[in-house]
């Protein structure tokens, strides 16, 4: 067991996969010589050389598309899109090409490709450098989407993603890069598609990811002092979604709050609720609440940014409201 930061965990996962398979290559803006703007990738260029670890021009559409071309001809590219806000810049390649390439060719290609990107708010980067990106991608069949919420997952799920023979987008939360956590020394690649009950409880289920999962844990601790028992599920992988873990928790608690660091409309919270309202409706004892960013985007100013992201206070209020009915 070693304590690593989320940042170090990501780096180790990259290094371990580059080491274990010569077909793995890695490129992006300033990831090689400089070691990345978030200092996530230092040393990879030195260890694996400039053929496999490369700095690209600022040409997201081109280099993401190149990853596809490389993947279908036998390499296993990992590509970094520095901020998830730049996903829209390369969106055509991601949603029209990468996601569809296997299907529309009738299964001629295998697309073992990983896109890594840093998403999420809380660090004062303003409107165009703070968004989460999972919903755009989830609404695009053909992509797997991973959202690691702690160092062990950042390590294991990234390795699992790189091993996948399908396109995977791994959205790291930039507000968690400094988070510390235990990573088992023998941890290998983790399979995608498994949620985790990060806290057991019996009164109410919270479903969350990444930063707001941390906020939810804080809330659960506080409520425990009042004798309220909250179960928390960290989804970890958005696609495929682990419906089983979700439904069995809802069956147990009968109450559900979904917490998203994302706008409300066409957000994945709705899928969790519709899962409950379809297959779990008779378990439900109370209205289901979503706590999210509503119709609001990120602003630079600190108080506004704090208000935008579901805060422990807003989460707690929703929990109380659901428990009150």
């Amino acid at each position: 067991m070693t304590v690593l930061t989320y940042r170090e965990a990501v780096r180790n996962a990259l290094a371990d996969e580059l080491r274990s398979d010569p077909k793995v290559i890695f490129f992006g803006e300033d990831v090689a010589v400089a070691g990345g703007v978030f200092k996530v990738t230092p040393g990879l260029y030195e260890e694996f050389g400039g053929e496999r670890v490369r700095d690209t021009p600022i040409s997201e559409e081109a280099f993401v598309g190149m990853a596809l071309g490389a993947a279908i001809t036998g390499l296993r590219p990992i590509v970094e899109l520095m901020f998830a806000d730049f996903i829209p810049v390369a969106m055509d390649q991601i949603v029209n090409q990468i996601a569809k390439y296997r299907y529309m060719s009738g299964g001629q290609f295998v697309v073992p490709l990983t896109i890594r990107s840093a998403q999420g708010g809380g660090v004062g980067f303003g409107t165009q450098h703070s968004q989460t990106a999972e919903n755009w991608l989830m609404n695009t069949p053909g992509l797997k989407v991973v959202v690691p919420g702690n160092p062990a997952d950042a390590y294991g799920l990234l390795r699992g993603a790189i091993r996948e023979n399908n396109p995977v987008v791994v959205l790291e939360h930039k507000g968690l890069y400094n988070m510390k956590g235990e990573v088992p020394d023998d941890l290998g690649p983790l399979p995608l598609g498994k949620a985790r009950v990060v806290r057991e409880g019996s009164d109410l289920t919270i479903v969350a990811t990444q930063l707001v999962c941390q906020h939810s844990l804080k809330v659960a601790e506080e409520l425990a002092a009042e004798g309220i028992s909250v179960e928390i599920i960290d989804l970890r992988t958005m696609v495929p979604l682990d419906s089983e873990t979700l439904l069995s928790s809802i069956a147990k608690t009968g109450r559900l709050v979904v917490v998203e660091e994302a706008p409300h409309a066409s957000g994945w919270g709705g899928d969790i609720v519709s899962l409950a309202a379809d297959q779990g409706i008779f378990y439900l004892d109370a209205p289901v609440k979503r706590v999210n960013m509503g119709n609001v985007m990120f602003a630079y100013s600190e108080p506004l940014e704090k208000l935008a992201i579901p805060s422990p206070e807003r989460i707690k209020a929703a929990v109380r409201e659901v428990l009150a009915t």
Partner: protein
Amino acid sequence: MIGIRIPEPTVEVKPLSEDIRRSMLYKMLQIRYTEEKLQELFLANAIRGTTHLCNGQEGVSTGVAAALRKGDTVTCTYRGHGHALAMGMPLKSLMAEMMGRVSGCCRGKGGSMHMTDASLGLLGANAIVGAQLPIAAGAALTAQIEKTGNIAVSFFGDAASNIGAFHETLNLASVWKLPVVFICENNRYGEYTPQHLTTPVEDLSIRAISYNMPGVTVDGQDSEVVFAEFSAAAARARAGEGPTFLEMKTYRYRGHSRTDTGPYRPAGELEAWMERDPIKILADKMIAAGQLDQVELEELTQSVQREILGAVEWAQREPYPDPEELTRDIFYEG
């Protein structure tokens, strides 16, 4: 009559062997009459959706394909039947795909705009303008890293040279010295709009300057010129000297897509280009060299047409994909 400027070759254009010529002629005829048959089938509603024909442009795909090696890869556009056939896609595979049958090259899931055959190195015809360029560069990256000596080729249109992906890819390919050849088929129109209304330069090859890359404007109607210019570019790429941008001047005889009758063409333009028909140019050379006569050409044409008809009839009896195909291959399972 509208005058057509014929670009000067920049390399020596040697007559190709009789074998290669004959094979190119055959492919061009196959493409020509396949396209004509498809237009007919579309107008008869025997095929649905849309289609983009390439008759008139056969010299480019055929000349390039003849110079490719096994292991080389190609990406192209929705106007991709010619590239597929030139690279050796069986007619049946293409026809079944056009009709959405499971025996099509993409199991009926691709259709007219996505003729793809990985086993031939045809990595995909793309319906998003410009999107195929980065994909080819990625294939070239694999060739570079794995030192296979293979090259990648990407075909695109004149109007595609105005989209961002074109610029980004040429730049990146140049700075990484990727073994890729960019082939612009300049047929003078993007859909219904002539080049000069969307593009302020006449010879698109000039754009290679921005990338410190060789750029050549080529007579796309003469498949032997295409072969020669492309071979030079391919040799540079294989030698690790990086990409080349080839602009092929050519013309499409049909409209942009199936319902377009081409009202925007200046009078006489189509006729002028038909004078420089790529099939005629090659056939004339072969006749002059005693490699072909009119009777043989006529026989070849008829045999190609019979083959096409056979493929159509076969494809029409092939089954559609099963319902299980709906969810198959969203992901690779395994």
